[in-house]
């Protein structure tokens, strides 16, 4: 019976396939005789042939589709109008003239037929009920983007991307719909080709050799952005709840490119470019400094712009070669890339080599079994500079350069680096010369997916993934004349990370008349192993004598005590989803995920995360259908719960370790190790719960003259996990706990686009997106939590951020600066009117989260020329400019440089360093994020070359802002006891502006 059944199914399917493939041609052939057939080619804006485009004569209604070379043949008379439509491009009307046509299609911004990637599957845009945005990576031409998260900048409403530093490959803070957690951990879940990535760092951490430790690099650096096909941001709970306990910060789904239909393709992309600092800080020049100082002793006779001294024009080159092929049963794509980027500060380099292979093949009758493999390997070599954010009483590299007296010289008369002979302020170039920091990170991400059709409509899918990283960092500070590790030290930090994934799921599709049901049910198991070691040497041999310790640590010096850690955690999940649509008008989605995590306490191992959504496609209602202006109109509403499990491992379990550090010399000479209690156990610990409502509307009006989406959401974090003071006589002074209290994020998001012009020769598309955000903390049982540790002398333990009820996360708690008196002395508001200005006079200021973020994108094409413009901006936010604080007027009296604006304001050098609203600045800005001009050449005489595109582009060309720091779009991670800081700008590696010349050649 079953053989017969399968046979029947096979026959049935092949019939469908046959008829689908041939019908149009039959149709065409029968009626073609009377007219001269028109031949034509349909290509994309870059000249690539488009297959599968529908070509329809508007007068005769004759229809055909293009073949793999983009060619079509249709009987049509001169002057007849043809309509060409294809998914992903704007419809195009052309008039027949002659017998040969070349039709260039413009990319369409919104197409109902567009396939959108969702968790564990895909849907057409028309069927989507949740709030999500999908970007096609090819449409994002951003210039140098090392990592995928940067590509979202300004493209998706409700998503805010902030650099933690401008260093090549530096970490990025991604906030989707506000700040949902007080702890560090607002990073969304990234899923690459179906493999959810761990949010742990994958590059070895930096040791602190007296200059602070630097931030971790972006874990997404391993993925070559040219390999990315789509990036989908799941914003609301309905879309994200299928990822359960990891969905609350939003989910970003990334798919990599697979072979496209058509001939085998070979393409080569390259660009070369140069970058330099986005702007310089306005500090005093040598002559200005001479005028400003009261004591001639601070004039050292030189004339140095220390910013120029450390900055350079960074050279960038990128090469990317890919080839792919698509056959009737499968496809493959392979790519190789190499990126070399010199940072804009001397000695900071980033070099990446990636290789990727995606293959897919079908087996058995009618592609019953489809096996896919995705494999990415990347090797990153980086060199870093000693610029951490953990500075205490002194700066780090950037601050050394900014603070250095401009009347000093770089070199002394003996051609050695000038020794400033100061404590905590050194010649930055000297520091750079004795510091050597190299990191190698090798990461492989691979997965195998198999899909087996059990029955028509019923598929079993299997996904096995592996994500392995090893990273080694060799940091050396050679013996030097500073008081930072003066006798030299070497540290090697190693990191190993391994994530394995196993998933099984079943999907079932059923269509009966107007009812369409999609079911998904599955199981997922993911295990994360994370381990590292560190060892080092101190009192090492001087630089350029003997062997550098990274090659042979044993060559000189004495070993320091090694250390290490190894942790593992597991996540076991069950999930299910139902999509139901009636008559394409009413859409319903419900999903449930049960997530079990080892991170949670014995009493709360599993969390359950439901979601519901409904959509109403008004377009298909009779009262809308006949309104020609409305091509699409859909209302959506959703509710759901997601979780956040990004807490440290082991925090539910108490641990007692024996450690020498807490020991004592009981007999006066021999150290007896002491019992250290590392944590107070909390077996009740569970995930943070985020509940979210979303209502939205999607529309396409006036033949693409206006399309877009509007969304309103209310996202509330409940049971936030905090590291708070523990009850008296607990083994440790703090404990990780879910506390009562809520973090509410509410906002309105819009995306509006318009295809202003769309003709054969000229097309112009613009879109704007924007989002508002209101964040409030409510019901916290603790009166206040501090974060945003301020760096600089005399500022230890001083925090700028406060988390307290009734205010937004990222509020500042600082003195109010009212101006200067006649002597230039600071005047602060005496809030409690006790005649004394002290910590009791601090006030809460609205802070770090901008009220409005927006992006503007324009694509203009004239014949073969294309011009792209992207603007981004924000308003209504503030930064605490810690850099300005460290460059305060006080420096004039301390042989250090100062921000010009304080001198211009006649501030008194006797003013003490005080954290106040003087350093709170508006972070409003408008930035030309990207400008690109390209031309696509086609060489008819070179048939082997499909297209050749040449472009120039500029990134961050200008920024309009009143912010006095390097970059208003910055967030220095300076958490305090795990509570994240927001809106602190501590002299990080500044952002760059970049100019590129690039070419794309397709064969």
């Amino acid at each position, binding site marked *: 019976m079953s053989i017969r059944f399968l046979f029947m199914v096979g026959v049935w399917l092949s019939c469908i396939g046959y008829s689908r493939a041939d019908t149009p041609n039959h149709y065409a052939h029968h009626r073609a005789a009377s007219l001269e057939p028109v031949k034509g080619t349909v290509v994309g804006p870059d000249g690539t042939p488009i297959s599968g485009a529908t070509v329809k004569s508007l007068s005769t209604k004759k229809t055909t589709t293009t073949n793999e070379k983009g060619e079509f043949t249709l009987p049509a008379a001169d002057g007849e109008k043809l309509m060409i439509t294809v998914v992903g491009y704007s419809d195009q009307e052309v008039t027949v003239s002659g017998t040969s046509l070349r039709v260039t299609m413009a990319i369409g911004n919104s197409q109902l037929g567009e396939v959108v990637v969702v968790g564990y599957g895909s849907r057409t845009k028309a069927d989507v009920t949740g709030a999500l945005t999908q970007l096609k990576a090819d449409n994002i031409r951003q210039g140098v983007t090392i990592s995928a998260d940067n590509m979202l900048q300004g493209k998706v409403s409700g998503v805010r991307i902030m650099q933690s530093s401008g260093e090549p490959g530096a970490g990025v803070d991604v906030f989707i719909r506000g700040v949902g957690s007080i702890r560090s951990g607002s990073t969304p879940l990234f899923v690459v080709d179906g493999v959810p990535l761990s949010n742990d760092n994958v590059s070895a951490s930096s040791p602190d050799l007296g200059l602070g430790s630097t931030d971790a690099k972006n874990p997404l650096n391993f993925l070559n952005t040219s390999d990315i096909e789509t990036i989908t941001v799941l914003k609301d709970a309905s879309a994200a709840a299928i990822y359960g306990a990891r969905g609350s910060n939003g989910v970003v789904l990334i798919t990599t490119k697979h072979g496209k239909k058509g001939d085998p393709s070979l393409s080569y992309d390259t660009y070369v470019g140069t970058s330099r600092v986005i702007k310089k800080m306005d500090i005093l020049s040598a002559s200005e400094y001479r005028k400003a100082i009261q004591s001639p002793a601070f004039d050292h006779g030189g004339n140095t712009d220390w910013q120029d001294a450390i900055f350079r024009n960074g050279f960038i080159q990128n090469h990317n070669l890919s080839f792919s092929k698509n056959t009737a049963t499968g496809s493959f794509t392979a790519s190789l890339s190499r990126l070399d980027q010199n940072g804009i500060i001397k000695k900071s380099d980033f070099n990446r080599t990636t290789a990727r292979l995606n293959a897919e093949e079908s087996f058995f009758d009618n592609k019953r079994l489809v096996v896919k493999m995705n494999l990415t390997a990347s090797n990153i070599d980086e060199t870093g500079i000693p610029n951490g954010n953990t500075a205490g009483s002194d700066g780090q590299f950037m601050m050394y350069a900014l603070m250095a007296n401009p009347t000093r010289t770089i070199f002394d008369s003996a051609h050695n680096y000038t020794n400033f002979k100061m404590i905590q302020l050194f010649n930055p170039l000297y520091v750079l010369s004795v510091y050597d920091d190299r990191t190698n990170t090798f990461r492989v991400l691979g997965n195998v997916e198999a899909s087996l059709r059990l029955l028509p409509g019923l598929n079993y899918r299997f996904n096995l993934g592996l994500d392995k990283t090893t990273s080694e960092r060799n940091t050396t500070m050679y013996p030097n004349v500073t008081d930072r590790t*003066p006798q030299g030290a070497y540290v090697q930090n190693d990191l190993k990370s391994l994530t394995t994934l196993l998933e099984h799921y079943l999907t079932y599709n059923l269509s009966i008349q107007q009812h369409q049901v999609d079911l998904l049910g599955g199981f997922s*198991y993911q295990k994360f192993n994370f381990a590292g070691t560190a060892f080092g040497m101190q009192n090492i041999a001087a630089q350029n004598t003997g062997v550098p310790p990274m090659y042979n640590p044993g060559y000189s010096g004495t070993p320091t005590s090694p250390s290490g850690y190894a942790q593992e955690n597991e996540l*076991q999940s069950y999930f299910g989803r139902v999509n139901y649509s009636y008559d394409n008008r009413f859409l319903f989605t419900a999903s449930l995920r049960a997530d079990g995590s080892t991170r949670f306490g014995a009493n709360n191992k599993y969390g359950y995360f439901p979601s519901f959504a409904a959509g109403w496609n008004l377009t298909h209602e009779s009262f809308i259908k006949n309104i020609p202006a409305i091509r699409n109109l859909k209302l959506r509403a959703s509710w759901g719960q997601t979780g956040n499990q990004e807490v440290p491992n082991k925090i539910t*379990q108490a*641990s007692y370790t024996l450690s020498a550090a807490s020991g004592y010399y009981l007999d006066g000479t021999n150290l007896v190790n002491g019992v250290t209690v590392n944590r107070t156990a909390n077996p009740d610990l569970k995930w943070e719960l985020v509940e979210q409502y979303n209502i939205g509307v999607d529309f396409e009006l006036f033949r693409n003259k206006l399309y877009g989406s509007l969304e309103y959401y209310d996202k509330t974090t409940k049971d936030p996990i905090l590291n*708070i003071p523990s009850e*008296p006589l607990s*083994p440790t002074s703090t404990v990780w706990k879910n506390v009562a209290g809520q973090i509410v994020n509410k906002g309105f998001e819009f995306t509006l686009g318009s295809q202003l012009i769309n003709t054969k020769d000229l097309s112009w598309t613009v879109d704007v997106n924007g989002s508002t955000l209101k964040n409030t903390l409510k019901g916290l049982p603790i009166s206040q939590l501090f974060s945003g540790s301020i760096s600089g002398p005399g500022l230890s333990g001083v925090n700028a951020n406060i988390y307290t009820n009734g205010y937004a996360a990222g509020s500042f708690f600082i003195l109010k600066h009212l101006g200067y008196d006649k002597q230039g002395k600071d005047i602060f508001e005496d809030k409690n009117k006790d005649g004394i200005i*002290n910590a009791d006079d601090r006030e809460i200021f609205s802070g770090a989260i901008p009220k409005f973020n927006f992006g503007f994108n324009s694509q203009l094409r004239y014949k073969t020329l294309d011009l792209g413009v992207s603007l981004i901006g924000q308003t209504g936010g503030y930064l605490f400019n810690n850099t300005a604080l460290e460059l305060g007027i*006080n420096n004039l009296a301390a042989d250090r440089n100062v921000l010009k604006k304080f001198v211009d304001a006649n501030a008194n050098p006797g003013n003490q360093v005080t954290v106040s609203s003087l350093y709170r600045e508006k972070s409003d800005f408008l930035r030309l994020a990207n400008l690109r001009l390209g031309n696509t050449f086609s060489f008819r005489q070179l048939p082997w070359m499909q297209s050749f595109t040449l472009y120039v582009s500029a990134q961050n060309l200008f920024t309009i802002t009143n912010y006095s720091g390097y970059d208003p779009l910055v967030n220095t991670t300076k958490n305090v006891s795990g509570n994240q800081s927001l809106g602190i700008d501590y002299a990080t590696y500044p952002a760059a502006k970049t100019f590129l010349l690039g070419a794309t050649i397709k064969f």
Partner: protein
Amino acid sequence: MNKKSFKIACVLLIMTIAGCTKLKEKVIDEVLGSSSASPQNALASAYGQMDNGTFVNHAQVFALQEYSTNEAILPTRGSDWGDGGIYRAIHEFTWGADNSMITNTWNSLNLGITESLTAISSITSSNDPNKAQLLAEAKALLDLYTFHALDLFGQAPYRDPSAVNGQVQVRKAATGIDSLIKDVESLIPALASIGQNNTGKGRFTKQAAYALLADMYLNRAVFKDRYAATFNFNEAAVDNNGTDMDKVISYTSQLIGSGQFKLESNFFHNFDIDNANGTELIFVITQYVNTVTNSSNNFAYMPMERNQKPSPVDRGTNASCITPEFYATWDNNHDDPRFQRHYQYADGTWFMNDGTDVSVPATSLVAGSTLPWFHFNRGMQVGQQYGPSLSGTDYQRTPDGRIKVNKLYCEKAPTQLMDFTPALNFDDPNQGVFTQLEINQGVRPFKYEFDPAGLNSRSNCDIPMYRLGGMYCMRAEAYLRKGMATEALADINLLRTSRTREALYANAPGKALTSIDMPTLYNETGFEMYWEMYRRKASIRFGTFEAAGTTKPVSQPFRRIYPIPQSTMDASKLFQQNDGYTK
């Protein structure tokens, strides 16, 4: 059942089987549970907490006991030591419940209590042959930490160590002091004497117990009635055998009369980095410079200027100093051996620090290294300072290889001479804020020797918790409070005359006083006990705590204790906030 259902069943089965992990978290880089800890380990951490910042870091107990008094101040010096005003608040009497030094001190003392309780449980359930003594030590440490918590905060948490999951209780100073006294007295028989059972001065011995009891009795009246205008020091003792002051005399006399301890003729030897052999030390926190324990160099590092460099890789930090009021108490007493002491190098060179120095030999080397060691003088550093300057990674040398001595300038105000003026001239007399060009001000007490082997942070110096000099101070005070001025004067004069000056001044002993009264005695305890966390309690007992002083207005009695930290008030409903502080 058809094959279709069978297939689906198979797949479902696979999926079910796959879901088999129990999700029990495996901890592979730590040993969980306390079973591996021996009683010694538990006791070591209870002791270790004394060193873990609590009594050795300037920003914990030291800050609350010293910076709040008319002896010590940590002003803001230009760009340094603003730190959100936490240090100044303590001296200006504007501290609140969110002052991080108050919070850290409270947390440290609480952790000491917790670790002592853990040690008590661990020792109680063990079969250690020396169980009785170890248990007594753990209990004594509990009492020690609790005593300091009651002294500073008026309240302390407690849990009966014998009760499983016992409720946390609050002990209040007024009643708690008596329980502590009774408990420590009951522990004496089980405690070792110094030297017995491998115990040294770093352990809580019978002698430490006597000293602690003397301290507790001396302050009992204050604990009993914290906000009183005057204290009743002659209340009957806990055991009704004499008065509090009798007990102070009795316990201090046990130590003074035991013959085990002897006043150092070189007063500063008590605070040398090789003071482990000190004859005067009764109970210390044992420190080693080459260790992973805290072993802090803080008390020496804090008063030293940044351009004062005990070795080419070490420096001071230009922070705390004494107040003009305290300096004035030394008027006509600058020849007191405790005021200053010059250092003499091996070749006979004295470091004069008065502008006459040319060089000192470079033969003294930092322990375990080839770095030259410049020895600064000890005691009060007043006026223009001199010392070595760096040239590359070494000191500047004279042609004959000796360390060149220069007139020093402040590091962060390179044009400002390093002149440690007794006066503190603040622009705003209510705020201890110096501009960058005023950072030189203030007399610096170099009571503790700077350990150049510790890279500014660690030291070999054992930190005295109790020493014989302090016992004389306490006994003299008890005598005087009983009206026995002769005996009080004798004790104070013994302290004065037992110390001798350096050979430069012909080893002259200090001069005796001819009479004594309360204000004199208060100053005398200052000469002996400055920079040793003694001042606040003394100041409260002597009634000087509320008086106005440098940057300090007349204060209210509620400031005699600190507030319970806001973080603790948030975490628990256990404590009631102390009077006068925002509830």
